[in-house]
């Protein structure tokens, strides 16, 4: 076997895995605190990507492609994602905190469908598009139609470009994704371990009732958890847009499901686990696509193998690879 081919797959796997990891952190952080599987988290990732595109269009009427647009878009994406997540927490999940387990899960499906449809219907040049609601007929800019998988803006120095080392192609967008994951991971580590809010999060995760007695505002901590997850999902949304050039309103479902697999794989509730799980899942998916021979290999079956892995992990190792906490999901 050609080693360059293997290393190329390794790089592709790590890139894909970084994307999964960024989303997976959102599942894990929320689960760690209120034992809720926020099934609609994949849609936050999707909303983030569309938020970034929207920011670019609003600010970039002259089609700006300079590098400094990237942080601006990041702010826009994070803002939209975090706002969506907070609204979702406040109006859909919080009232159900003491309800039977079935209720939040069904709510999550509802939110998921709602957000997808919301973007599909109201994001675009259609008469009732969001921008027309705000600006009336005299719109200064026009969103591309979300139904037609709009192109993500290309940013100079990040989109498209690549260099080759020893036969392995490294795309700038892929490097951006991996670097973003590393930075987010480091940032999250300091946030959780070195700040008051982070330590309050840890305390709440260990024992919400005692944390409340110690003067921690548990409701606020839960909102922080949702916001942190949403911010990372927004970063993932941008990374996805840069890498695959087109974004789609349906992309949150599959990405969310795979990121959830990653979170469980690493041990749900464990932030490091989510990162490790994401990377492992990305590697497995890419390697399976590349190396499973015969008719059952190839991209037609890759989602089947990802789902099969999800089932196997949930059934045989629900505590995950790092096994941070024993999960009893009754």
């Amino acid at each position, binding site marked *: 076997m050609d080693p360059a081919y293997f290393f190329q797959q390794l790089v592709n796997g790590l890139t894909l895995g970084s994307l999964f990891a960024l989303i997976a952190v959102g599942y894990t952080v929320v689960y760690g605190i209120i034992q809720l599987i926020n099934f609609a988290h994949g849609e936050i990732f999707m909303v983030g990507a569309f938020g970034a595109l929207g920011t670019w269009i609003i600010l970039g009427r002259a089609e700006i492609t300079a590098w400094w647009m990237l942080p601006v878009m990041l702010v826009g994406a994070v803002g939209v994602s975090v706002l969506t997540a907070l609204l979702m927490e406040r109006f859909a999940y919080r009232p159900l905190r003491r309800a039977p387990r079935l209720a939040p899960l069904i709510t999550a499906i509802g939110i998921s469908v709602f957000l997808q449809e919301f973007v599909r219907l109201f994001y675009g040049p259609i008469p009732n598009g969001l921008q027309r609601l705000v600006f009336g007929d005299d719109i200064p800019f026009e969103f591309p139609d979300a139904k037609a998988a709009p192109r993500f803006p290309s940013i100079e120095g990040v989109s498209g470009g690549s260099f080759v080392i020893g036969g392995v192609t490294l795309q700038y967008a892929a490097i951006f994704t991996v670097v973003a994951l590393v930075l987010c991971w480091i940032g999250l580590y300091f946030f959780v371990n070195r700040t008051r809010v982070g330590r309050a999060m840890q305390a709440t995760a260990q024992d919400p009732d005692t944390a409340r007695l110690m003067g921690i505002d548990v409701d606020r901590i839960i909102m922080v958890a949702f916001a942190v997850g949403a911010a990372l999902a927004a970063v993932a949304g941008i990374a996805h847009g840069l890498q695959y050039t087109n974004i789609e309103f349906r992309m949150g479902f599959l990405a969310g499901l795979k990121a959830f697999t990653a979170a469980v794989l690493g041990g749900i509730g464990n932030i490091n686990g989510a990162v490790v799980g994401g990377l492992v899942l990305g590697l497995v998916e890419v390697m399976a696509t590349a190396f499973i021979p015969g008719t059952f290999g190839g991209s037609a079956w890759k989602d089947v193998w990802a789902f099969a892995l999800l*089932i196997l992990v949930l059934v045989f190792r629900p505590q995950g690879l790092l096994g941070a906490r024993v999960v009893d999901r009754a």
Partner: protein
Amino acid sequence: MRRPQIVTDERRRRHGGTGWLVALVGAVVLVGAPYLPWAYGDEAMDDMTYLGGPSPTQFLGLALGAALLVCLLAARFLVPRLPAARRRWFAWHTGASAVATGALAFQAVVVVAVALELGGLVNVEYGGWIALAGALLAFAGTRLLVPERTATLGRVHSPGWLVIVVIAVVMLGSLLLIAHALDEDDPGVFIALLVFVGAAVVLVLRVGLGGWFSSQTARFRPVLVMAAFLVAFAFPFTQDGSNANMSIATQVLIFAATALGLNIVVGLAGLLDLGYIAFLGAGAFVAAILSGSAFSAVGWNPPFIVTVLISGVVASVLGLIIGSPTLRVSGDYLAIVTLAFGEIFRLVMINLDGNDGPDLTNGSNGIPNIPDLNLLGFDFGEPHVILGVEIPRFANYYFLLLVLIGLVIVVFANLNRSRIGRGWVAIREDEKAAEAMGVNVFGLKLFAFAGGAFLAGVAGAVKAHHDISVTPDQYVFLESAFLLAAVVLGGMGTILGVLVGATLLRLMPEKLRFFDEYRLLAFGLLLVVMMRFRPEGLIASRRRQLEFHEDDEELAAHTGETPPGAGRVEPEGAR
């Protein structure tokens, strides 16, 4: 969680008289307003432009007003004259509140529909505004009435003939209503009619007749069920050989049969299955492959009875496979495992196209040209004439599906009342306790999956012939979500609830075509709102209602059961 109360009992006692008067004025306005024009254009709803000549929709508004008037007058003038034993037969104030709420919703729908259909609120004429104001008055006034605790009519014993006559009248009325509603093309009128029916049903239940009906018909349950089926069988004869409504009706029945199967898994055993559509798909694909279609990869074409059984068995084997992880996972994880299975099913069906895998399902194009059923020489594809009425193609399938759904209901009801059903309830409420009590937890869970899957497989076999073609993209996750929504909307664990939920979810999109674009948006919102405000569904089983409202002691006292998990607090003197 306690909600802030604007109208307290104290205020009610003080201002009850004023409230009655305000509500009375509102009711009189509601009765009078239909004689005024409601809209400027005759295209809105069913022509409400005349002075002195109410349209059918306006008559519905009048009926609500009249019902409110009856409730209010009866509460003030009839009740004090009755002997003490009969004073609490009816809950007139509770009924008045319910019907006033319904009237408000009705008038709001009318105003919005006129505005939408004619383009703007300016098209609502003064009568429409007066009616809305009357409804607002009635609504506000009835909030101040002191509601009766319970209606005691349910304890009154009535002669058998009366009960049977009432059953017959109710059934006949619902047949006419369904036939009429399905013929209604105007979306505004259709929704107004739905709201009216909802208001009428709630009024009847609240005022005390519901208690009477359920306690009296309990004696005549077989009569009730037979009457319901007779009505369902009579439905095609009201359609004059037209296929249009029958096609909707068959879709509703297929959906309802599948949802009932899911209800066994979710409603009875409490196992959330998000991949249930895969069983319907498995049944449909098996039937399609064995149908003798030119696109089928298998030449064998057995009689339909055999095909149905094979479909059911294949689906239930899949059910066993999907159910087997329940030994180790439960709750949210189980839901996601089933979701993953459902997606794997769809992807495999797409991939078995002879290119990415063995050829079995013709890939994403699916299997078209499935021949119509032919049972014992009865060709389902041809129209037949029965009793002088032409029975078109879809009506043939309708009868078959009705038999199927009857079968599902019999299975469901018997399982629910059996040792197995009680085992499921025990597992749902506390798995560990159930196991300790000797319930075969794993076996019963597997049985729930296999049984539910069998029913869906059988429904899928009929669906394949009904739809003529089977493709993998009919069996996406969203369809599973729809099935789940039917169960949740109607009421988990109840037969009637799921039938109502399935009917609403399949009928609404057909009738509200203009709404098509926003259908899924509304669907997502509906799930969230239902879970927030009425998680037990429209027609709740008592036990479920208690599970979802554990801390609501009033409800527990009302239904005479103790909420699970709530500690029994004995009064001091009882010890």
